[in-house]
């Protein structure tokens, strides 16, 4: 085991796959020489050369078209969209092209591609560089959507995404880039569509994703001190969604809370809450509660950003209040 940062784990995951399969190439803005603006692709140019690690112009539609065309013709490309907010200028390629081409052509073609992207808030980047948009992607049939929260998961899920034959949007929690975690030596390959129980508990189930996972864990630590046993589930993959793990936990605890970075309306938790309401209503002992960012753009002032994003404190308070009611 060695300690690795989340950002270094991204480069290691990509390197693991590029070393294994020479059809894997990486393209994006400033990903080669500079190792990425978030330093998530450091060393890849040196290791794999300019034919496989390629800097692009600032042309997000062209970047996504490039990986899509390449994926249909024999490569297994990885693209970087620097900030996930930029998906708004190339969403056509994601929604109308990547997500639909396989279905629309009756399965004539596979689209083995990954689009990685820095997602979410916490870095004081303001409203246009801080959005958590994984819920946009979840709403489009034909995409797979993952967000790891630990360095080990970053490597394993990146490997799973690269090896998958469908288009995968790989959301990196920007706020977690400097965080560290233990990572085993050797090849790591995870499975898409699986959630992880980060902490077992009996009184309440808390679902979290990406940046919200460590905050939920912190809240659970605090609540343990109050005698409340919280089960924290790292959802990890929105599509496919591990409903078995989620519904199983709700059956055990009878209480459900979601912790979402998305603005409130139609955040990913809303869909999961709807599934739980339909499938597991009689397992619930009390109403479900969603802990979300309010329905506003993220302000850049550190005091305001901290105020509106769900925090360990706000999660703990919400759960505690609900369970004591």
């Amino acid at each position, binding site marked *: 085991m060695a300690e690795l940062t989340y950002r270094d784990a991204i480069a290691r995951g990509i390197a693991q796959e590029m070393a294994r399969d020479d059809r894997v*190439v990486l393209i994006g803005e400033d990903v080669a020489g500079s190792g990425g603006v978030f330093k998530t692709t450091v060393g890849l140019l040196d290791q794999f050369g300019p*034919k*496989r690690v390629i800097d*692009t*112009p600032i*042309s*997000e*539609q*062209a970047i*996504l*078209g*490039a*990986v*899509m*065309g*390449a*994926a*249909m*013709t*024999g*490569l297994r490309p990885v693209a970087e969209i620097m900030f996930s907010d930029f998906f708004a*200028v190339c969403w*056509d*390629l994601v929604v*109308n*092209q990547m997500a639909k*081409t*396989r*279905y*629309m*052509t*009756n*399965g*004539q*073609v*596979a689209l083995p591609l990954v689009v990685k992207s820095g997602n979410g808030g916490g870095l004081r980047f303001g409203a246009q560089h801080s959005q958590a948009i994984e819920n946009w992607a979840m709403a489009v*049939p*034909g995409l*797979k959507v993952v967000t790891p929260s630990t360095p080990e998961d970053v490597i394993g899920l990146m490997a799973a995404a690269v090896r*998958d*034959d*469908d288009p995968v949007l790989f959301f990196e929690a920007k706020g977690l880039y400097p965080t560290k975690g233990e990572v085993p030596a050797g090849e790591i390959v995870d499975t898409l*569509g699986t959630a992880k129980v980060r902490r077992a508990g009996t009184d309440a189930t808390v679902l979290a994703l990406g940046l919200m996972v460590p905050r939920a864990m912190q809240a659970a630590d605090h609540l343990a001190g109050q005698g409340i046993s919280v089960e924290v589930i790292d959802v990890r993959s929105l*599509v*496919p*969604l591990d*409903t078995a793990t989620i519904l199983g936990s709700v059956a055990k605890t009878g209480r459900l809370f979601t912790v979402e970075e998305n603005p409130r309306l139609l955040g990913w938790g809303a869909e999961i809450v709807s*599934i739980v309401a339909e*499938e597991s209503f009689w397992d619930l002992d009390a109403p479900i509660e969603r802990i979300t960012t309010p329905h506003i753009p993220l302000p850049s002032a550190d005091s305001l950003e901290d105020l509106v994003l769900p925090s360990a404190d706000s999660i703990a308070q919400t759960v505690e209040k609900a369970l004591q009611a």
Partner: protein
Amino acid sequence: MDDLQAVAVPETGVLLEMYRRMLRIRRFDERAVDRHGKGEIPGPMHTSIGQEATAVGACLAVNEDDYMTGTHRSHGHPIAKGVGLDALMAELMGKGSGVCGGKGGSMHLADFSVGSLGESGIVASAMPVAVGAALSAQIRGSGQVVICFFGDGAVNEGAFHESLNLAAVWHLPVIFVCENNGYGITTPVDAASAVPVVADRAAAYAMPGVRLDGQDVLAVYGSVREAAERARRGEGPSLIEAMTYRFREHSEMGSNFSFGPYRSDEEIAEWLERDPLVLFRTAVLEAGLIPAVELDEIETEVDAEAAAAVKFARRSDFPPPEQAYVGLYLDERREPASLELDYA
């Protein structure tokens, strides 16, 4: 096509194939219009009638394993690349035997077996994908080229700019073929583009640009061949603007709908005089390159092919209901009546 002696004329086999494929497009679309009017083809439909020479000239100038991307007006492109008519007509009629199993429709007649990478109903949206296929060809060293078809309406989309720039800056083997039919639905090019000559835009991307007569299959063929050779030599993309005209409306919308009087009768009449099939037939006969009887034989054969395609499509079954639920992911994690069905 007046001075046929002046251009490099391809061998007779290619000439015959040009005529055959142009005729296939014409007869296919004529029958599609007829069936659409009878209510047998659902949804909108954009025909290629009048624009056959551009599609055929371009596709015959490259190899079968070269790639192609299309547009919303793309009945002609797969036919030009060599796809048979049966599965295309069945697709229009929404039948399970359609080239896309009935799930693509008129705007998505994609047959990957002839190098089609799909046809996008979103204007300019397939252009970045064409560039990606060219990047792949370059990385793999396969020697393949990509024909990227688009209309005059696409040139004011951002994707046009991003695609031409990236292809040029990376010297990718793309042939950008603009089918300039003069109108984006009803808006004339002059009202839409500050620089109305699309070929002039090539200068902005440091690539060769040429405007030519899109009704002249030999002109298109010659120009695309040259661009393909250039691309295969690693010298990068080219932009070819083929001036053409759609003989019918933007789309088949039924007799109750009108796009309004946006084209003058005189203009339409002038262009109908420039029917690419008639121009070709006249030119090769006058030059004595092909006897009339051979062209007549092709006409008889293609008429029969188109009739057979309609018969095939009409006799085919609609897709089985379960067809709606498969083909989204390659990794089918779907079990009916379980959560997997709804949540993948």
